[in-house]
Every structure is written in structure tokens, then in C-alpha cells.
């Protein structure tokens, strides 16, 4: 089974996204901010990361830049999942190494469609 790390400071979003991703046959782990996510990645690099932008301690963009500098840090498919829905934020995320981008609010169909775009399902 593929492993997806869900990084979001909202427990509700982590729970909802976790259910959707489990239905797509992933095992799921969770982190509430970028620093916690980076620790998890160093121990067990996931196949996919669903990543919020605005979080305390370390935001999603800083996490992504740090992740891509890590050993095997280019392996995970990173899908941003955020309220930052304007073109400037999307471009910045892609430049930092994001593979896909989900604009909140989202539903199961959107997550599946975006995961399909990057070959995760």
C-alpha cells in the first residue's frame, strides 16, 4: 500500500482528507505543521504528501523547499491543498516543487482527480 502524509493544522481537514485518501487505498499518517511533517519524512519518506499552506511553526511552502533538499526528498509526490487559490500562490508552489494543487474546499472527486493527474491512482 502507498503511504500518504497529510499535513494540515486543522484536525477536521486531516480527518476528512484521511478518509478520502484511505478510500483510495493509501495508508495515512498526519502532521499538524511543516516541522512535524519533516521529522516524519526523515524517518519514513511517504509516497504522497497532501500539504496545507498556512500552518504554525513551519508553513507548507517552507516545508516543501526543505523537503526537496533532503536525501530522497524528491521522491514524494506533493499535492498542495490550500485556501490560497490565486495564480501567484499556485505559481510559487509549482516553482518550489509541488506536483499538483488542490484549491479548498475540496471533495473526494477532486482528490481522486488530482491524484490521478500525478499517477498516484
Amino acid at each position: 500500500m502507498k503511504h500518504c502524509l497529510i499535513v494540515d493544522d486543522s484536525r477536521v481537514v486531516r480527518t476528512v482528507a484521511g478518509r478520502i485518501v484511505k478510500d483510495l487505498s493509501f495508508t495515512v499518517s498526519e502532521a499538524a505543521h511543516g516541522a512535524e511533517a519533516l521529522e516524519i519524512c526523515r524517518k519514513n519518506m511517504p509516497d504522497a504528501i497532501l500539504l496545507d499552506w498556512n500552518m504554525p511553526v513551519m508553513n507548507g511552502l517552507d516545508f516543501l523547499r526543505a523537503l526537496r533538499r533532503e536525501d530522497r526528498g524528491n521522491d514524494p509526490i506533493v499535492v498542495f491543498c490550500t485556501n490560497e487559490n490565486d495564480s501567484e500562490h499556485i505559481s510559487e508552489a509549482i516553482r518550489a516543487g509541488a506536483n499538483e494543487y488542490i484549491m479548498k474546499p475540496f471533495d473526494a472527486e477532486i482528490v481522486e482527480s488530482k491524484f490521478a493527474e500525478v499517477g498516484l491512482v
Partner: protein
Amino acid sequence: MQESTFNELADLALRTTGQHIPVSKSYLMEARLSSISRRENFATLDDLVHCLKARPNQRFEQEIAAALTSKRTHFFREREQLEFIVSHALPQRLKQSKNGRLRVWCAGVSTGQDAWSLAMRLREEVGSPLASADIEIVGTDISTECVETGTEGTYGHYEVQKGLSIHRLMTNFTRGSSGDWTINKDLRENVQFRRHNLLHPAQDLGSFDLILCTHVISQLAQPAQQDVLTNIARQLLPGGYLYASPTEQIEGILKTIKPSRDMRGAYVRDTAKPDTAAA
């Protein structure tokens, strides 16, 4: 909804669009007519039908029939088929073309996503012979509202996230202040949308090298399937392709088209049958 109301609406859909709505899908009527019903201040569909019978209004009937058709679609819906069209069908037609012009008809295109998906995919053919070809895409639908949406090319938050990669979104759309996304001007040059009822002859639209009619035929009652396919096939140029969804069984409905050996869901005119000569 009373049984008589369902029967009246199902009959209207069958007469006007050829669509067969079984009793098991009566809930679809409630959903698809809710906005019209609200706009016209009808408390129930029974009231709406009662009014239609008391004061027949052909324009309103057509609007209701169009609203009853399925609008379900998304970008890059038949991805494998689209790739085949871009990599094989259109290049093959281009080789046969004397003036470098090709015409594609997306029949029953709903809110336009199939037409725009093809336009986006063609734009990615940098360096291929298709890049310099003059390819016109005509999308038609029975619903005026759908034609307006396709023409405007503006789609909401959910629509642009289904079937569309973030790279294609950023390349081909611009985000408006309302948060909706609109197709860029450079993609619009060769794409147009027109209102057309597939039950009617389509000579006005001209002839086409390729016709996409996906997820339409399977929604229709049997006699309407034959009428629609006859009208469509008449607009197909010799050597052109008709595409249905690969999951739709249209083989045998019309004797004048036959399955193509090239791909499942693709059909060609049977040249031995003169009935489908292009108008």
C-alpha cells in the same frame, strides 16, 4: 411529484430531445427542474406541469426539455480517446486535407468541457503538423444555458479541478476576481458553440472530419438513437471518424456507420451505403 406529472415530463423529454427517463430516475426531474421551478415561483413540479397544460408555451417547453438533459461532464473526460484523436485521427485527416483545414463537431457538448479539452490538447502539439493546421471546433447543445456557459468559457472552483491538471489550468485559464476561471483568449479563436437539437437535421453546421458524440446516445430512447445517429452521420465527411464513448454500444443502431478497426468507440461511414453522404 404525482405520477401524472412524471408522465407528462417524461413524455415532453422524449418528444423534444429523445431522452428516455425511467421512473427510477424521477428524482433527476426534481433536481434538474428545481431552478426553473424556483424562478417561475412554482411550489411544486405538479404546479409547473398544470400551468404548462393550461397555457401551452413552446419556448418554455423547450427550456424544460433542455433542462431535463444530463449536464454531467468534466474536462478530459475520455482521455484515451482524446489522445488517439490527437495522435492518429486528426493527423491522418490532415494528410488527406487539401487546404490544411479540419472541422470537429462536439455534439451534445453540455457546458463545453469536451470542446475546450480538445482545444487545450491541440495547443500542446508544438512542432507537430497539427500545430500549423486550421482546426475548427464546433460545440453544440440543446440547452441555451449550456451554450452560453461554453461560449463564455468560465468555470467554477469545482469544475476546474475535475480532470484538469494544475499545469493545464494555469496555462489555459485566467482567474477572475470572483474566483472563477475563464479560458484564455488565444484558445478561443477556433472554438465556437451553437444551440442545436440533435433530433433535427444538421446541414446548417456543415460537414466534419471528426464528430465526438460521447455520453449522449446511451441517454436516448431507441427510435431517437437512430434519428440522432442518422443526422450526425450525414455530416461526417468520407474518411472521417465518429466517436461515441467506448462504454456506449451504438453498433448496429445505424447500418450506414461501422466500427473503425483503429479504436474502440470509433466509427466510420460505410461507403457502400449512400444514405449518409455528407450534406
